[in-house]
């Protein structure tokens, strides 16, 4: 009597724990050889997996990760406060920095008005542009009427 054992594909399915076609499943349930093949492979795989780390190692690794996580969270927390403080400082200092700019700006130099003023002075007394009227009167005393006329005509000299 020939016994048909599981073929490769069926044995792979058995190792994977997947559902076998009904005839193959029935065979596996009753065939010690096929079950031993499957269990042998699974046993090797289980051995290759190796032992799990002991409780102390697990705890040490876990604690390290938790501590590093806590440190990272604390850093983020601290950085948030530092950023908020920096923003606050900037907001406080900004008005001081911009203070002088907001003070009344110096009056603008009105060149047109100055020129008009100068022209009017020169028109009334050209020497006034060189020396003061007091000096002129001391050096060349002239009556007011003449003085006014002479000056207007440009005839008087200080030399």
């Amino acid at each position, binding site marked *: 009597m020939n016994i048909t054992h599981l073929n*490769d594909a069926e044995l792979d399915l058995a190792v994977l724990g997947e559902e076998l076609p009904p005839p193959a499943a029935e065979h596996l349930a009753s065939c010690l050889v096929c079950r031993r*093949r499957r269990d*042998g492979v699974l046993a090797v795989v289980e*051995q290759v997996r190796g032992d799990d780390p002991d409780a102390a190692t697990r705890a*040490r*690794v*876990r604690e390290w*990760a*938790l501590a590093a*996580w806590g440190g990272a969270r604390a850093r983020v927390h601290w950085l948030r406060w530092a950023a908020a403080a920096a923003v606050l400082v900037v907001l406080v200092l900004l008005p001081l920095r911009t203070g002088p700019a907001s003070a009344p700006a110096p009056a603008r130099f009105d060149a047109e008005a100055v020129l008009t003023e100068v022209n009017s002075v020169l028109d009334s007394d050209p020497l006034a542009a060189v020396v003061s009227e007091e000096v002129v009167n001391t050096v060349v005393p002239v009556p007011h009427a003449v003085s006014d006329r002479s000056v207007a005509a440009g005839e008087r000299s200080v030399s």
Partner: protein
Amino acid sequence: MASAARRELLVARDDERELVELARRGDRDAAEILLERHELLAFRVCRRLLPPSEDLDGAVQETLLRALKNLPRYAGEGSFGAWMASIAVNLCRDKLRRRRLVPFQPLEVRGDDESDPLAVIPSAEPNPERVAMARQAMQRVRRELVRLPRRQQEVFVLRFFAGMDLEGIATALHVDVGTVKTHLHRAVHRVRVAAEEATP
């Protein structure tokens, strides 16, 4: 005392979304419980996806820390375990990429001496021949595992070492379940052949 009682209450909660929400708000107890539940998965994934020269504890610490730091990004699609697995796999990929290593482990893989090779052969008499055979089977499977294409290796590790279901693996690797099945079948076939060749 009140803190211990509160922690007990948190531990009893099955709904991880609540724990995640509390941890997001900085609750250390909630975060610790989440890690306690899923750290083993990170150990198992990192252990088999990274070469033995890589610091396993450091990699797991980094995985857990990434998970905590990125809690605000966890949208709740899929389980927290799948999300953690996703972080672990990505971290392993990053480390391998940074070191410019192909994702293969040397033959002297991590944990070679920790396993009991007799467990490979059920109800076997502990004679030297069987022990040697069992050791050989484990070596062959380890070798085959590191030879698998990266995606097949990841799928196999998540299924058989981290104990995840197909949906969880699909979520963790951002692929569909059909793709997971395909990779898993190919990986299992190669691993099974390697195991059986060593244990005739």
